[in-house]
C-alpha cells in the first residue's frame, strides 16, 4: 500500500514515445539537415568532418562535383555546422534515423556545376563558389580594379598558382593587397 502511495505521488515517468511524439531537449544535436540551394560546394564540411561522413568528390564522369552525406557514419559532433559559411548544413532535431533493409536510405547527395581554371581549363571548384566570392568582393568596398584582379586570381586553380607563382604575382597584384 505504501509503495502504491509512493507511485501515485511520483506519477508516471515513462515517456509515451513511440506512441506519441517526443520533444527533444534544447540544444539537441540531431541529424544534419542539408539545404541544397545554399550549398556552394566549398568542401569545408568534408574537411572538418572527423569521421568522413561528409564527402565532396567529382562524380564518375568527372563533370559534376558531388556533395555526399552518409548518415550512418555521422557522429553528430556539429563540426560541419560550425564551418559551413552559408548555413547550408545545420544540425536539426531529427532523431528518427533508423532504416530497414536498405542502407542506401541513409545517404543524401547534391550535385554542383564545375568551374574551369582560366589558365589550364581544368575543373577545380564549383561555379557557385566563384559567384559567391565575387558577390562578396562587391560588398567589401574595394575599387573595381582590385575586384577584377581578385576575380581572376580565384578563377585560377591551385596548381597553376603554384607553378606560375612569379607570373601571378606580377599579373594579379591586387590579390596580395
Amino acid at each position, binding site marked *: 500500500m505504501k509503495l502504491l502511495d509512493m507511485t501515485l505521488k511520483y506519477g508516471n515517468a515513462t*515517456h509515451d514515445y513511440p506512441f506519441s511524439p517526443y520533444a527533444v531537449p534544447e540544444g539537441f544535436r540531431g541529424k544534419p539537415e542539408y539545404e541544397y540551394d545554399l550549398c556552394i560546394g566549398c568542401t569545408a564540411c568534408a574537411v572538418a568532418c572527423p569521421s568522413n561522413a561528409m564527402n565532396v568528390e567529382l562524380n564518375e564522369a568527372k563533370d559534376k562535383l558531388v556533395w555526399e552525406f552518409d*548518415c550512418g557514419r555521422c557522429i553528430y559532433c556539429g563540426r560541419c555546422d560550425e564551418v559551413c559559411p552559408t548555413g547550408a548544413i545545420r544540425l536539426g532535431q531529427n*532523431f*528518427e534515423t533508423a532504416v530497414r533493409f536498405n542502407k542506401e*536510405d*541513409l545517404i543524401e*547527395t547534391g550535385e554542383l556545376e564545375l568551374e574551369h581554371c582560366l589558365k589550364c581549363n581544368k575543373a577545380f571548384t564549383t561555379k557557385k563558389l566563384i*559567384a559567391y566570392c565575387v558577390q562578396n568582393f562587391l560588398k567589401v568596398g574595394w575599387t573595381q580594379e582590385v575586384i577584377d584582379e581578385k576575380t581572376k586570381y580565384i578563377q585560377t586553380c591551385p596548381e597553376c598558382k603554384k607553378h606560375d607563382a612569379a607570373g601571378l604575382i606580377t599579373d594579379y597584384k591586387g590579390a596580395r593587397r
Partner: protein
Amino acid sequence: MSKTYIVPSDINELNTLEDKLQLLKDIKRSFSVYRIDCGSCNGCEIEIFASITPMWDPERFGFKLVANPRHADILLCTGPLTRHMYYPLLRAYEAAPDPKIVIAYGACGCTGGIFHDSYSTWGGIDKVIPVDVWLPGCPPSPATTIFGLATAIGVLEQNLKRVDHKDGGVKPPVIEESFFGNTLFERDIVSKTKVLMGYLHGRILYKKYVDAVKKSTDIYNPVKVKYELIEAIKNESDPRYKECMQIIHNDVYLKHLKTYKSIDDTNPALSFTKEEMDEIYG
C-alpha cells in the same frame, strides 16, 4: 580487410526476406534481444541500458534483453567489429535460431563510424554478416534506440529516404548587405564569436552583439557604440556574453574602425578597460 566469411547455405536458406517478415509477424510484440559488443567504446552499451530503464520502458512493446544468443530473435551488434571480435560475432550469429534479425547499432555498427579507417576494425557489421536494420547515432539516444527497435519489428515506418539533389544551377545564395559597409566586419565578428563561444552559443552572441551595435545612432562613433554595449551588458544576465561582447568591441570593432578614421584605441572612453572587464565577475 576483405570479406572472408560466407554465410553457410543452411542459414542463408532460412533467412530470406519472407522468412524474416514472417518471423516479425509471429513474434508480434514479444521479442528477445541479444546484445553483442563487437569492440564498441561502450558509449552504445550505456545508451542501450539507458533505454531499458523505466524512463523508456521498451518492455511496453515486448523488448527483452536475453543472456544467450540461442534465445534471441534479434541480434543487436554494437561497435566497428574489431579483429578480435570477428569469431565471437560469427559464433553468436550461427548460434542464434533462424530466421534472425540483425541490427547494426551506432555509427560504428553501421559503417565503422569514427573508427571506419582504423587498421584493426572491419568498419561495420555488414562487412561480415548480413544486416537488416541500421540504427545510426554515436551513440544513438534512447529515443533513437526505441525508434530503431520499433522500426525493426514494424511498429513504426522508417522516415529517411535517399535524397539526390540535382540541377541546382549556378546562382549562389544572396549575401546580406553589411550594416557596417564592409562584409569583412561581419566575417570577423562571426569568426571571433566562434573562437570565443563555439558555434552554438557563438551564434547567440553574434546576434546579441550586432543588435546592440545597431541600436547606436552612429555606428562609426565608438563612444556611442560603447554606450549601447554598456546598456546591453547591463541587461544581460550571463557573464560569458558580457565579457565576450567587450572582447569583440576591443578586438574587432575598433580594429575595423581604424580603416575608416584614426582613433586611439587605448583611450578608455572608446574601449573597455581591464577594470571594466573585471567588474563583470564582481
